[in-house]
């Protein structure tokens, strides 16, 4: 599986550099004073889509059938995509966390709001691939693309609704904790479902 993760990381570096720039720009904007929830959560949502992007490249480049001939099980292949999702998500949330800690220190703010915000970004980051990947592993990324657009739209709608309802005031902390753990459970179930779907797929 180490080889698969190495491959995905190289692919991300080569194919998804623009997304890294977007993450940097949005993080910078969110840090420099514009306390808009959109700027904080967008990098988390967009990097959550990257495992799906990697899967699309693998299908396009005919890596999936070839991978079946390597000493790699289908479960390992699926797991690599979910692990890469967590690695990228972790990195993105780390960058957002640092920028927001600096913002609270420099511009002031509530630490509990920051905690709610980070839980929301984490939840959105894993919820998006958790919904998309089983469809992609079951029906292929072409058909899974429809779900991709629904998830992107849904993610931004959720962000907007959260912002309109007062954002991440201290009282939101409990709700956000529940949201994050629910997303984590869905991510785990999604992984199990994807493994099951992919093991049944014919190449």
């Amino acid at each position: 599986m180490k080889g698969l993760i190495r491959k995905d990381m190289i692919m991300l570096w080569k194919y998804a550099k623009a997304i890294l720039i977007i993450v940097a720009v949005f993080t910078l904007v969110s840090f420099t004073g514009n306390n808009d929830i959109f700027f904080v959560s967008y990098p988390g949502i967009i990097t959550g889509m990257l495992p799906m992007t990697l899967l699309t490249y693998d299908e396009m480049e005919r890596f999936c059938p070839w991978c079946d001939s390597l000493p790699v099980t289908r479960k390992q292949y699926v797991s690599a995509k979910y692990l890469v999702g967590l690695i990228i998500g972790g990195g993105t949330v780390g960058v957002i966390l640092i920028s927001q800690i600096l913002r609270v220190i420099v511009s002031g703010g509530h630490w509990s709001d920051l905690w709610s915000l980070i839980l929301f970004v984490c939840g959105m980051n894993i919820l998006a691939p958790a919904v998309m990947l089983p469809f992609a592993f079951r029906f292929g990324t072409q058909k899974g693309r429809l779900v991709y657009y629904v998830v992107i739209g849904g993610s931004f709608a959720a962000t907007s609704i959260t912002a309109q309802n007062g954002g991440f005031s201290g009282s939101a902390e409990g709700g956000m904790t529940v949201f994050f753990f629910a997303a984590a459970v869905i991510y785990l179930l999604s992984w199990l479902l994807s493994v099951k779907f992919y093991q049944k797929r014919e190449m």
Partner: protein
Amino acid sequence: MNALELKGLTKKYKGFALDGVDLVLPKGCIMGLIGENGAGKTTIIKLILGMIRKDGGSVSVLGQDIASVKEEIGVVLDQVGISGCLNVKQVGRIMGDIYRNWDQAEYERLTKKLRLPENKNFKEFSQGMKMKLGIAVAMSHRAKLLILDEATNGLDPVVRDEVVQMFSEFTRDEEHSVLISSHIVSDLEKICDYIAFLHGGKLLLCEEKDAMKEKYGILLCTAEELAGLPAGAVMGKKESAYGVEAMVKREAVPDRELLPVELEQLFIYMVKEAER
């Protein structure tokens, strides 16, 4: 123990069925799978590799189930599935993480021998270069069995000859075997010990190449002479205004002079006969 054993292998699709294929590839040998496009060559290879589920029959690779011997097989598919953004060096590093027996020195020797540029991305390679990299990967982890699906496609004649020789050298070790599918019969004629003819999902013939050439010959005769031959002697025929050219079993016409038969001729005759 045989390198490969297929018994009654069956797979049904809408409009195509692989029909109870039996094949045995002994260790240390090269078997050529010959068939026109859509004959079922790739389906057989996919079934061997477990990419698709079989509807019937059994597959044994190096005496075991495919899942337990993937370290010991090298595979080149008709489309090499290496990611377009990777270069030769990166592919080597990734494969080193995937195969326990990865031999980096051998990989570097092969990529040099096949004149593959180290730092160019795979997507910038020509079709031939892509195939060559796939072959280098398949031969760099001390595999005992190579499974090659149209692996000589896209190669120019000089490189094709070089690659075909590499496969031939690979089987100098009696533990090493090769299954290669192609519709370029001349490539297979050079190196194969066994030949299997496939047509419309059915195995028409599977025999030792030399025995096959000794067993069949081309008879030039008239239509009347042909009609007088024993039943079952004629494997296929071509009739024209000048007479008949028939592929016959040598043992059935011991008193006639026969022309030697080429594999390609034999295949075409058998396919035409099967279509009658």
